[in-house]
């Protein structure tokens, strides 16, 4: 068997190189997020947001932008034979899950590097809540990457892929979004960040991540069977 870290690095490097070269996912995700913020700004007719509303606007936008990337995550493997190539190689198939989830995590992180400053510029009076927000973003991204990779790998063989991903993914990430907005809301309060139940929500996010990473690890091999 090829060492898992070698196969993991090969698949991840391939995905990142292909995205850098073609820019098929990230620009669309970033543009979607920025456009949605503009729409929220005019639709809500508010120049500042705080608390639950700020957290809701931020996370609903990030989630729907993430769906764009999740939809395309396995398209190259499906259309260009990557699944067959990996099944023919002496590679533990869960390595593909790990590499794809990592690639998605990187895409989400890059998306947030663009979208969160724009969100702050449009809606926040102060950036004081942003440093602790990084912890929420990292944990929520882990959960989204695990769940998104799992759902994307199941939906990619369907002609209704674009429909199936949001239909299956969104109910599954409801707990993740509840925890993410719960942790974000006090950070974006007017008058500076608060930390009420912040640790609890982070623990919920961590538990969600753990569950879906383990589920992905356990079932991914079966998803690649014919």
């Amino acid at each position, binding site marked *: 068997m090829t060492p898992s870290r070698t196969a993991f690095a090969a698949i991840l490097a391939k995905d990142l190189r292909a995205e850098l*070269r*073609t820019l098929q996912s990230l620009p669309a995700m970033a543009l979607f997020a920025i456009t949605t913020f503009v729409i929220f700004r005019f639709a809500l007719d508010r120049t500042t947001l705080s608390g639950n509303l700020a957290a809701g606007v931020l996370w609903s936008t990030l989630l729907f932008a993430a769906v764009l990337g999740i939809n395309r995550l396995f398209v*190259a493997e499906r259309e260009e*034979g990557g699944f*067959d190539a990996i*099944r*023919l*190689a*002496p590679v533990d198939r869960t390595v593909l899950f790990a590499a794809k989830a990592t690639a998605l995590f990187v895409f989400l992180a890059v998306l947030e590097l663009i979208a969160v400053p724009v969100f702050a510029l449009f809606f926040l009076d102060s950036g004081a809540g942003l440093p602790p927000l990084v912890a929420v973003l990292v944990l929520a991204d882990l959960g989204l990457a695990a769940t998104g990779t799992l759902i994307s790998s199941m939906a990619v063989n369907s002609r209704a892929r674009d429909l199936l991903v949001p239909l299956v993914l969104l109910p599954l990430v409801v707990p993740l979004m509840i925890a993410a907005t719960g942790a974000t809301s006090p950070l974006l309060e007017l008058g500076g960040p608060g930390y009420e139940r912040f640790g609890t929500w982070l623990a919920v996010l961590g538990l969600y991540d753990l569950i879906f990473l383990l589920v992905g690890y356990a079932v991914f091999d079966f998803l690649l069977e*014919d």
Partner: protein
Amino acid sequence: MPGADHHQNTGPALSLEGLSRDYGERRALGGVSVELDAGESLVVLGPNGAGKTTLLRVLATLLRPSGGRALVLGCELPDEAWKLRGQIGYLGHEPLLYRDLSGRENLRFHARLHGIERNEAEERIAELLEAVAMERRGEDRVVELSAGMRQRLAICRCVLHRPALLLLDEPDSNLDAEGRELARRLIGPGEGRTRVLVTHDPERYAADADRVLRLAVDERAVAA
């Protein structure tokens, strides 16, 4: 090289008894029985829909058999399919190459999946690209290459890890006369290669065949 780790097999390279594969209610492949020794070539013939590609995909462990017995390089399918990974060179209808990567990048990717050391991989890739007269086009993205050039690259990908068994589905597809001649050096008979080759052109491959398997739609296969 991964070839050194190949599962040691002392029996026939291929032994099939009543192998079948169904897609739902439809039988795509039925009653295939044939044996093939190491170093021999089996040519598979048959009309469209007879199950030739399905047979290759079952042997490549990409599809599970529905019935019968399949022993490939001493490994029972599907239970020991994992032992076969890395021992098979599969050339199907799709080149299994990423369009947005260059030919050389694709081959490096496959080399890493097969656990070939970096320096060894670079030497092997250079050798293969030269063998198919692609050394000057190795840096071009696959999407920019003609169908024939992609097929040459796919052949390189197929033999990159020095597989013990070659499964070739219409290997001459899209190749010109020069390409066919170059490809023959890498995937042709001889040099101890064990091959299962699907073709619609029996005359071209008749001389290479140690055995011929004729598949028919809705009929039992006949090995000659």
